[in-house]
């Protein structure tokens, strides 16, 4: 092998490739009280926010690190079997898929939805159903899985201005005893146009996480 000087190295930096190797997309559908789809948005998502990688770095070397929860409080978290957990039960809004009325563009430092819709049947509230999922499938060179959630409008009137969606995930701390769960924003998207949910209707959000070789 030829030895080379610091100024004569084989250095290559390639700044562009065509196919993203990891992707996140969303499908948002609104149905009326008869189950008829009246609005649909399907698009690539932007974006994962920093908490997603905060949790990843904690798992990567089993070291406690801090991560901001959905209340804006910095929490120390540990690798735990409950990390990135999004499978919320019905009525639970601490984690799982959420929708909101916020319109501010996504920032990498977002830690919550700007204006999340709360659980209930009152004004501007939605009844959150259980978060569903479809296990990973591989088609061609892509492996993907989905999580989804429907939220029903039994408020008595139309809910307008649904403009943001996202996923809250749970983590824990295990040093000095198990603490938490803590809830972190994993990803958030602002929709290109506002959606409205008629009384008796529902909104269903499906996120697809995929990797492509």
């Amino acid at each position, binding site marked *: *092998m030829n*030895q*080379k000087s*610091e100024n004569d*190295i*084989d*250095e*290559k*930096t*390639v*700044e562009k490739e065509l*196919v*993203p*190797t*990891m*992707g*996140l997309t969303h499908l948002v559908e609104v149905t009326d009280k008869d189950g008829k789809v009246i609005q649909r948005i399907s698009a*690539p*998502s932007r*974006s*994962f*926010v*920093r908490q*997603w*990688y905060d949790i*990843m*770095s904690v*798992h*990567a*070397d*089993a*070291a406690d*690190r801090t991560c901001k929860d959905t209340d804006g409080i910095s929490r120390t978290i*540990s*690798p735990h*079997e*409950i990390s*990135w*957990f999004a*499978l919320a039960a019905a009525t639970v809004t601490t984690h799982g898929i959420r929708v909101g009325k916020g319109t501010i563009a*996504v*920032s*990498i*430092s*977002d830690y919550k939805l700007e204006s999340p819709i709360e659980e209930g049947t009152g004004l501007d509230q939605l009844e959150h159903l259980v978060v569903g*999922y479809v*296990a*990973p499938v*591989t088609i*061609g*060179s892509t*492996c*993907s*899985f989905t999580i989804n959630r429907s939220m029903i409008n039994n408020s008595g009137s139309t809910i307008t201005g649904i403009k943001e969606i996202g996923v809250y995930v749970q983590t824990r701390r*295990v040093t000095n005893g198990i603490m938490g769960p803590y809830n972190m924003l994993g990803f958030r998207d602002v929709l290109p146009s506002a959606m409205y949910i008629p009384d008796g209707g529902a909104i269903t959000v499906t996120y697809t*996480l*995929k*990797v*492509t*070789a």
Partner: protein
Amino acid sequence: MKRELWYEVIVRDRQGKLVSRERRRSRSFLKQWNQLMYVQMTGRSLPGVMRTSGVTFTLSEDANNFRMDGAGSNYGIVCGTGDTAVAIDDYTLAVLIEYGVGAGLFNYQAGTISTVSIAGSRAEFVNSRTALNNSGGLITVKEVGIYTRAGPSTYVCGIRDVLETPQDVPDGGGITINYTLEVVA
């Protein structure tokens, strides 16, 4: 959103002098990466997941999942001499360079993980590892990847890349691989 993975490969000789460097966008994450994320997000076990050994097992949510700072060649960043194209179903490097100091072996050092850094709309962290060549001969690295833990003592291949340029690591020298996981909002 751009969610990206980059790798950088740096080769030095026995005096620590830079021999070559290559930085490139990684392709790709493999099926096992998404399977790990699925069980963590849902808390549901998943049968039929392939170990790096080629034997299937049932993957479950676990505190060890995604650990990738390993010593030895069981988990962490690893190198190989194979150059078959990456496929989504890859479950191991094509030809793993095992841990050791004999012929064709690498003395893998412990991996390091950075904390997440933010720069503008970008968040990233870096997984780094150096492998020393004390084998007595030259070793040509053609592929790199990340094996992660998938439970206490089970390992899966989450990422594999075939290098654009094979890297000759001289005896007494070393190779450092930096994987950067980043997301841009």
